[in-house]
């Protein structure tokens, strides 16, 4: 089978994740969008590891996985802290960054 199919599947998943980050106001959903993007990139790594016959790609994917896990822990902690202080986890709410 042409490995490019996997690449295109990864692209689609990535785009959907990106769109979710941009469109969803719920911080948790947006966060899941980010996870989806990470996984899409992982799919690419695994695919090309196979194409090139290099096991290092899978190791990289594993590293991405670990980083993603760490990111999830911190991100969710932030979301909890946010919901504690605001009773709300809408992404539009914290607009102190407004210039």
């Amino acid at each position, binding site marked *: 089978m042409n490995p490019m199919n996997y690449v295109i599947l990864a692209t689609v998943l990535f785009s959907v994740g990106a769109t979710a*980050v*941009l469109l969803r106001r719920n911080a948790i959903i947006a966060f899941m969008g980010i996870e989806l993007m990470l996984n899409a990139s992982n799919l690419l790594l695994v695919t090309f590891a196979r194409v090139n016959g290099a096991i290092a790609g899978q190791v990289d994917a594993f590293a991405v996985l670990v980083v993603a896990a760490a990111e999830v822990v911190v991100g969710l902690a932030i979301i909890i802290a946010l919901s504690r202080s605001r009773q709300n986890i809408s992404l*539009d709410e*914290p*607009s102190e960054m*407004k*210039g």
Partner: protein
Amino acid sequence: MLHLSWLIIAVPLASAAVILLAGRAARKWGHWLAVAASATTVIVGIGAFVQMLGLDRGDRAFHETLFRWIPGGELSVDAGILVDPLSMSFVLLVSVVGTLIHVYSVAYMEHDPRRSTFFAYLNLFIAAMFLLVLADSYLLLFVGWEGVGLASYLLIGFWNQKSEFATAANKAFIVNRIGDMGLILAMALMFAHLGSVDFAHAFAAAPGASTGVLTAIGLALLLAACGKSAQFPLQSWLGDAMAGPTPVSALIHAATMVTAGVYLVVRSGPIFAGAPNALLAVAAVGAITLVMGAIIGMAKDDIKKALAASTMSQIGYMMLAAGLGPVGYAFAIFHLLTHGFFKAGMFLGAGSVMHGMDDQVNMRRFGGLATLMKFTWVTFGLGWLAILGVPPFSGFWSKDKIIEAAFIGDGWKPWVFGLTAMLGAGLTAYYMSRLFFMTFYGGKRWTDDQHPHESPLMMTVPMMILAAGSAVLGLVLARGNAFTAWLEPVTGTVAHGEPVLAVPLIMTLTLILVALGVAAAYFQYVSRPVPITEPRASVLTLAARRDLFQDTVNGALVQWPGEVLTRIAVYADAAAIDGAVNKTASGTAGLGEVVRKLQTGKVRSYAATMLVGVVILLAIVVKGGR
């Protein structure tokens, strides 16, 4: 003792540092430490002098490098001292007169709360002055040159609670800066064309340089000398410098610092040797100042300002002598020494008079003090006779030589300079007699609440010693041309030319002029009562009272254009430079106002922006990849 010469600089410097650092603690002993430091310089100086006398004439130049000072590539200057007959003369003058004035000041400044500070400054001054005369390079000389300027500034403004005194100090400092610029220019020229700024190398290279370069260096040195020695056209600060305590006027503004210009010219003899035009300029400046100082001195009623004008005039004599070239160098230094003694003595006398008259300085308020202040009268009288040039007092020996030397030469020069010098002698006789008569003779003109009295011994003894010097120094040094011979290793041997007039004739004419001057003063100020207020007077007198409008001229020539330039610069700064900066700032702020609208604070907008950016970049990459 020659190898200990560095102590002459170090001891007073250390003493000044100790006193200044000790602050209040030094109030009780600071002045005695300063006197001791000064006395040490006399001992070391005399020791070195005796040792030098024991040497052969040709070996009488002791040079010692103290440390590598500026080891910088092509410009490598070492700090070293050079003790030769010329600097030795200065060392003796400064140490002896300086010590006497230190002693005098102990009594004179007795009631001043900042007496120890005053002594620290005095020590700083003599240290700087010794550095100036002992330096072996122009650069080190410059350090001393600035040091004496600083000390002079500090001492003129010693009573700076009075604003006009502080102004006088500033004036002295600023005018001196112009002269300093001359010295810096001279050093730069030397380095560029002679390759060195130390005496030995610069003088060795001087004969090989072009006349134009040497003339430029000479003129720059002359500018420096004019600033320090209050010569025309930088003379205006000296009169105001009398704001300082009288011992300061005696030491710095009569005997030593103001003569540094003469030292500079004489020391630079090898450079002037190749620049006759610069030498002529020196002589011309001396002649002009000599007459100018005399004219101003004739009209001043302030005893210290009259003496200051006289100082200007006498230094004019020295410059004139120095401007005559090697013929006059020795006479210039000779007159400098005798002048140092008699003028310092007279200043101390004036201080003594002021001390007894509650700091009154207006001579029209003196009169008849001869009987009340006998010591002061006698010592001042000796100084007076000396400056008049009455034989056998010391001024006669030195000044008469200068007048004679001025007549040497050919063409118009001997006539102009000689007659000017001779005329100056007459004027000097008039204004010094006027000063002397107004102070010590005639009826008493002081107010009833003043009680003139003789000063304490600690003041009169230094005056007596200086008076003794005024009386006999000239005779001692002139005997058998001893002084000229002493200086010969520095000034070089010169074939003595013949004056255009016969020497006895010159001497007689001069003495006649002097007698005339004294007589005129006598008739005006002793035979007739002296008005307490300034009488109506001729235009010339009025001009002389105002220092020949020197401040007006300076104001019009320098100050006014300077102020206009400053205003223009301020306006340009505010309108153009600040304007540009401010406009840039407000433009940036305005741009920010526009751009900040993009900052919505919504995270998702930012994310969208990022993604759009990524897409654009990707499009470029894909496009470029094809």
